[in-house]
């Protein structure tokens, strides 16, 4: 290689390096903004909550170290609840019981419904775009607005009971004011509100399944339902895991719908009371931020364990 060639290639190399380091700097600046926000509102808040859970505090005076006393409050509450105490004597237990039932209803239903909606939206039929938008609309609407609308719909003389008289004559519960139905009403609203959102995730995953796999199944005698069962569902497994995990996280810390539909006291008999409502009440009504923090950690441990176990068991990448 001649001297001039060598010089040119070195110059190009240094230019490339300069450009690379400039790109790296720009990337760092952009990332640092998000990282800073995350540090303050995410990691610091989480660490502070953990720290706070060992202290008694009233937001104004000095913080007093109380060891595991705040956690004892939780376990006593749980124990009272297990022993059959009323809602107001064991609010955390009630919140836990309700949220587990709510999660058991909402997560499987919204996942299956989202998958079915995606299967419909994935068909080449006229006006499919309208349906896609209709399904997705609740996802971009405020949960508070949705809850308010549904309070109207769920009223004793509301539209849902009006429709029910055609399907199940004589069945017209007072959804919001009857403790036997309140949690189911909240669950129904949640399912309606989230299925469309998860439908989009499933739709994207469905559209990435190669067409020739469906065609092969078709030629091998599989009709639409069997194609859905044997091809679509198994091939959506990674997305199902993702949706269920997100669903579990969202359901276990549900707050907004319960707050609007049941109120901060959880409605009749605490039927709509959730763990997140209880944490809020501890922090801002009872003014026991230490206990609220301890309960938050309990909730975090619950969400972490459930999602970890689920992912560990089912997260098998098939593609």
């Amino acid at each position, binding site marked *: 290689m001649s001297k001039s060639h060598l010089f040119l290639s070195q110059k190009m190399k240094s230019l490339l390096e300069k450009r690379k380091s400039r790109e790296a700097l720009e990337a760092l600046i952009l990332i640092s903004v998000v990282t800073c926000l995350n540090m303050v509102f995410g990691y610091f808040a989480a660490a502070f909550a953990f720290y706070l859970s060992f202290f008694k505090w009233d937001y104004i005076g000095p913080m007093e170290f109380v060891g595991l006393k705040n956690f004892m409050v939780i376990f006593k509450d749980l124990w009272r609840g297990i022993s059959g105490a009323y809602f107001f004597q064991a609010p955390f237990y009630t919140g836990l019981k309700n949220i587990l039932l709510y999660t058991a209803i909402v997560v499987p239903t919204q996942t299956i419904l989202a998958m079915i909606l995606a299967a419909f939206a994935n068909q080449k039929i006229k006006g499919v775009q309208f349906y896609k938008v209709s399904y997705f609309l609740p996802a971009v609407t405020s949960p508070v607005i949705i809850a308010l609308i549904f309070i109207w719909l769920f009223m004793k003389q509301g539209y849902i009971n009006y429709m029910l008289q055609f399907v199940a004559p004589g069945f017209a519960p007072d959804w919001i004011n009857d403790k036997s139905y309140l949690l189911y009403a909240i669950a129904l609203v949640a399912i309606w509100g989230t299925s469309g959102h998860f439908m989009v995730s499933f739709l994207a995953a469905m559209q990435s399944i*190669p067409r*020739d*796999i469906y*065609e*092969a*199944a*078709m*030629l*091998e*005698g*599989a*009709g639409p339902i*069997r194609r859905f069962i*044997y*091809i679509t569902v*198994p*091939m959506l*497994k990674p997305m199902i895991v993702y949706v269920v995990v997100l669903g579990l996280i969202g359901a276990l810390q549900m707050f907004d719908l319960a707050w609007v539909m049941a109120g901060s006291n959880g409605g009749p008999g605490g039927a709509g009371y959730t763990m997140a409502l209880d944490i809020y009440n501890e922090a801002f009504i009872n003014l026991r931020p230490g206990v609220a923090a301890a309960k938050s950690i309990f909730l975090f441990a619950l969400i972490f364990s459930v999602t970890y176990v689920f992912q560990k068991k089912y997260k098998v990448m*098939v*593609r």
Partner: protein
Amino acid sequence: MARVFLENVVKKFGKVVAVNHVTLEVKDKEFMVLLGPSGCGKSTTLRLIAGLETPDEGKIWIGDRLVNEIDPTKRNVAMVFQSYALYPHMTVYRNIEFPLKMARVPKEERRRKVIEVAKFLGIEDLLNRYPKQLSGGQQQRVALARAIVREPEVFLLDEPLSNLDAKLRVKMRFELRRLLHDELQITTIYVTHDQVEAMTMADKIAVMNAGKIMQVGSPIDVFEKPANIFVAGFIGVPPMSFFEGTLIEKQKSLFLDLGSVLFRIPKTYYSALHPHVGSEIVMGIRPQDIKVTLEPQEDSYEGKIVGYEPLGTETYIHFTINGTKEYIAVIPRGMRISLKRKVYWKSNPQKLYFFRKSTGEAIY
């Protein structure tokens, strides 16, 4: 087993006519290859037979059944896709078992058949593996096993060898033909753009272009007696060289006026070509039938080498006679050639093809 018959079939995608009035008969147990360049409609034709596309016009028969309105799930045809389309979430065993399961075959019988087919194709050791754990050749065998396990009436293959490397392709070409034609004797329709595959595997070849069937015949027929310029140019490696010119007659002899050269046409062709005197025609010569020498010989013409491709056993040379159009000839290895060198060429007088320039149809 069944005969497949397409009668005047048309398939349009918007304004594009993918299959244009195709009539084709594939006899029972016949190995038919649909051959043509990309976008010629051969895969669409296959998909129409499978039922994956619906014809806009025409009728498709499989055996005695008119299948136009019959769902692909009920046509009893098996297809091997270019990508193999194996189910990635199922083991090889489950993949092969799938069509039997869909046909509600009892579990024990399914097991027996899967093992039988796996042994037949030499993949019994792979039954517990997933498709991603297999090589291209193994995947292809699994796709074949899945297709033959339920003993379909018709076997459709859409470029099944195109994802394999050259060596494996040659091996599988031979094996496929032996398996489907010689051993199983299933009516097979095989789509490819590779004419070597077509020539070596087919009982009959249907050459397609622009949605139409150009010629149907045995491999030897389409090679020896091409119906038109397209078939003549498409079949054969390297492709046939075409010499365009005006046919003229001088002293009871026919000549092709190539501009700078007057090519003397052998007497054999006189009666066939005589009605075309004065018209523009195209003469085709296969490169293997052009003899190239470094010194002039009797009835040879001058040319200049513009490129060459040594293949080891032989060399393809590209030459011109008037500086514009290129022609190809095959020369034996060891011949001393170089770029821009003057050479002399002559044709095998028995192996000339003539076509109408206006329509491309064969005259002789």
